[in-house]
């Protein structure tokens, strides 16, 4: 067996480190001191990062066309025969196998890298909380599940990780389980996720039946062998079902409602799970199966339109939120919409690129907000903040870097990834571009609204909170600084060719993308048809709109802070609609949640009335009737027979009684009678001699 180098042969150890950490926490965590817990759990993720970095480094040294490594740990679901939908027979055999290719590499580095920084941050943030070991145990369990999801070489193992991250999301959102709202939020997240999972599973089954395999490396050849035409209905069905799964996990319309509520969890959880990693699982899954999606233009359009709609929809709600974490939550939903917009128009590398840059600056923003909340002794309402710039300088400065990045100002990371998506969106449909462009403007506006309300302007901080404002310790600010650095330089790896860059990122990922038909155009070819000029114009338009948004935010929240209230009062209808989140939660409650509860109650009364009433009580009644009959039988028939036999004996004994009267004269009479009988017998047989 040829080896690919130590790290590539041992990619299976990457999820193993956090798994071991989680196991240790669950077995012994309670008895361990915080320092030991920190060492084990942060160390496990650090080890995973080192192994991941080593593996990717080795992968980079391989030839681009052969960058694929697979390690099978064991035969998980042993082989069995089954029929495919086209009638042929195949063997169903699922191994517990991990693989690494360019797409995985990006994901694994982002997850372990950002994950490690967040673990370090949590040591400081959760240091004074109860359940320290439980938090890190769940966090490590999440890392194990996420890494299993990313490194899986087949869909079933990916589903194991998929469910695992859903579970950890529930556990971590509901970490402060004594608070009812936290428990409810955890439940909501898990239940909504589960709806998506049904779609994922159905898609998995359909893939298995149609292509005969759920191994990612074999799906491509299976599609080629099956000669599926572009637009094949079965491919559309598969893609749409899988996309339902993605909407649940990645918070798109209509299954996004859990993410804002998920802010009930501790801030590092929001940063890790709901910004940088778990929510990107849907994007990863769609990209991984791009061969299937590209065969269905219908599904691609659904993805793109859903992504665009979600982006602008969520951004509109972010405009009026007053909780610092809620703004970031809606921003996450909106940015995820961008990623799906990118995937839907065929710009898979752009979508993944945005996934990576978004992980950097969104994690930064969430951790920064955590730092702000920490400084503000738990206050999360921005209306009670202000003028914090000089009081928590490191937090403020890194936060500003993250905000500039998300607003899409070059040369920070957000600009390159957003621009890549918007450029491809314009090629598909200018309408999609307009939606994305407007959303970008709104993003810049609401993010700078956040920054202005929190760090600048006049202080609206409550008096007793003001005394405790302090900068966070190094263990929390160091990750902020590192993430800020990546928010600045992280996009340079995908510097577009139209701006004289070499776009290493897109070239690195290209082998993973299936190509049916024409290749992407080169710069020279684009220039010749004027498309290059259009690209420059689009980039300029994005930047200009972003700057406009920033300027508007400045005007509204620093120069004249009363403007927002007056505007809201004038357009109170629209304002109420937005601040009540379009009443979507209420609509869902009325249509689905309460109807399900009603069904439960109806089934309950059926259980009590019919099952308990007719069933259990009926059976009881029947038993009593039968026992009555039994009793009659026993009394009259069985006992009757007994009595008859007794009477018979009694009757037969009456003559026998006379034999023993005790009267001697009676006995004497019997003797005489017997004598007469004997004489009679002998006299009739023997004649007397008569003379």
């Amino acid at each position, binding site marked *: 067996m040829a080896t690919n180098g130590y790290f590539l042969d041992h990619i299976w150890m990457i999820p193993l480190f956090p798994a071991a950490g989680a196991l240790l926490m669950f077995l012994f965590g309670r008895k361990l001191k915080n320092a030991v817990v920190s060492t084990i759990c942060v160390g496990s993720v650090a080890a995973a990062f080192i192994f991941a970095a080593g593996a990717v480094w080795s992968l980079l040294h391989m030839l681009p066309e052969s960058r694929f490594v697979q390690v099978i740990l064991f035969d998980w679901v042993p082989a069995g025969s089954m029929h495919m939908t086209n009638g042929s027979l195949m063997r169903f055999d699922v191994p517990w196998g991990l693989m690494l290719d360019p797409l995985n590499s990006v994901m694994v580095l982002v997850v372990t890298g950002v994950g490690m920084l967040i673990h370090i941050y949590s040591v400081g943030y959760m240091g004074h909380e109860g359940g320290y070991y439980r938090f890190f145990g769940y966090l490590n369990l999440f890392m194990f599940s996420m890494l299993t999801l990313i490194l899986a070489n087949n869909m079933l193992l990916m589903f194991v990780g998929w469910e695992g991250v859903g579970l950890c999301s529930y556990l971590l959102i509901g970490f402060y389980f004594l608070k009812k709202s936290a428990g409810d939020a955890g439940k909501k997240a898990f239940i909504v996720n589960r709806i998506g999972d049904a779609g994922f599973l159905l898609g998995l089954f359909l893939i298995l039946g149609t292509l005969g395999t759920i191994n990612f490396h074999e799906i491509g050849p299976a599609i080629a062998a099956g000669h599926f035409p572009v637009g094949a209905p079965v491919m559309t069905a598969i893609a749409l079902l899988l996309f339902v799964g993605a909407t649940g996990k990645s918070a798109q319309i209509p299954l996004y409602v859990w993410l804002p509520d998920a802010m009930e969890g501790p801030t590092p959880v929001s940063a890790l799970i709901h910004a940088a990693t778990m929510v990107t699982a849907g994007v990863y899954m769609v990209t991984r199966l791009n061969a299937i999606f590209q065969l269905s233009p219908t599904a691609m359009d659904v993805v793109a339109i859903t992504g665009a709609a979600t982006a602008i929809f969520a951004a509109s709600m972010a405009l009026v939120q007053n909780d610092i974490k809620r703004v970031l939550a809606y921003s996450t939903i909106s940015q995820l919409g961008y990623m799906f917009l990118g995937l839907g128009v065929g710009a898979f590398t752009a979508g993944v690129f945005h996934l990576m840059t978004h992980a950097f600056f969104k994690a930064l923003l969430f951790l920064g907000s955590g730092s702000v909340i920490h400084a503000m002794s738990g206050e999360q309402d921005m209306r009670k903040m202000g003028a914090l710039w000089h009081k928590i300088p490191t937090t403020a400065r890194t936060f500003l870097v993250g905000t500039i990045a998300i607003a899409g100002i070059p040369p920070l990371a957000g600009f390159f990834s957003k621009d890549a998506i918007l450029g491809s969106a314009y090629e598909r449909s200018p309408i999609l571009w307009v939606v994305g462009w407007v959303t970008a403007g709104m993003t810049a506006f609401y993010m700078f609204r956040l920054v202005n309300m929190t760090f600048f302007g006049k202080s609206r901080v409550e008096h007793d909170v003001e005394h405790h404002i302090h900068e966070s310790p190094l263990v929390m600010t160091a990750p902020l600084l590192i993430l800020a650095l990546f928010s600045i330089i992280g996009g340079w790896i995908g510097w577009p060719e139209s701006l004289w860059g070499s776009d290493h990122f897109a070239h690195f990922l290209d082998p993973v993308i299936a190509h049916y038909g024409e290749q992407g155009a080169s710069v020279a070819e684009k220039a010749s048809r004027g498309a290059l000029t259009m690209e420059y114009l689009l980039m300029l338009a994005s930047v200009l709109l972003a700057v406009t948004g920033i300027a508007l935010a400045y005007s509204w929240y620093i120069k004249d802070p009363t403007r927002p209230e007056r505007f809201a009062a004038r357009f109170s209808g629209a304002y109420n609609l937005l601040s009540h989140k379009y009443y979507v939660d209420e609509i869902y409650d009325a249509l689905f949640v309460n109807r399900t509860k009603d069904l439960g109650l109806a089934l309950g009364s059926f259980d009590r009335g019919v099952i308990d009433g007719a069933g259990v009580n009926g059976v009881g009644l029947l038993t009593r009737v039968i026992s009555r009959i039994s009793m009659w039988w026993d009394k009259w028939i069985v006992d009757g027979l007994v009595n008859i036999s007794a009477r018979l004996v009694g009757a037969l004994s009456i003559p026998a009684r006379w034999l*023993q*009267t*005790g*009267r*001697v*004269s009676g006995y*004497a*009479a019997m003797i*005489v009678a017997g004598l007469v009988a004997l004489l009679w017998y002998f006299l009739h047989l023997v004649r007397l001699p008569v003379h």
Partner: protein
Amino acid sequence: MLSITHYLVLSLALFTIGVIGVVTRRNVIIILMSIELILNAVNINLVAFSRLFGLVGGQVFAIFIITDAAAEAAVGLGIIIAFFRNRETVLADEMDLLKW
């Protein structure tokens, strides 16, 4: 003249009266007397046949019977007296201890 038949009929009559007495009478002393009557009827029978065949055996046997009857009467009366001492009765109906 007198044939053996006359003696046999007499014997039979006495025997029958004796048997009826044993079976029918209430008083046990009368029953004892009836038993004597039976025995004596048998005696007449034996003596008549002894005269008829000229064999002396019949008469000898009759002497045995008379002796036996006497002994039996003595024992019987002794039993009756013992019983009377316990039960105060000489009536056969009331001597029903064998019932149980």
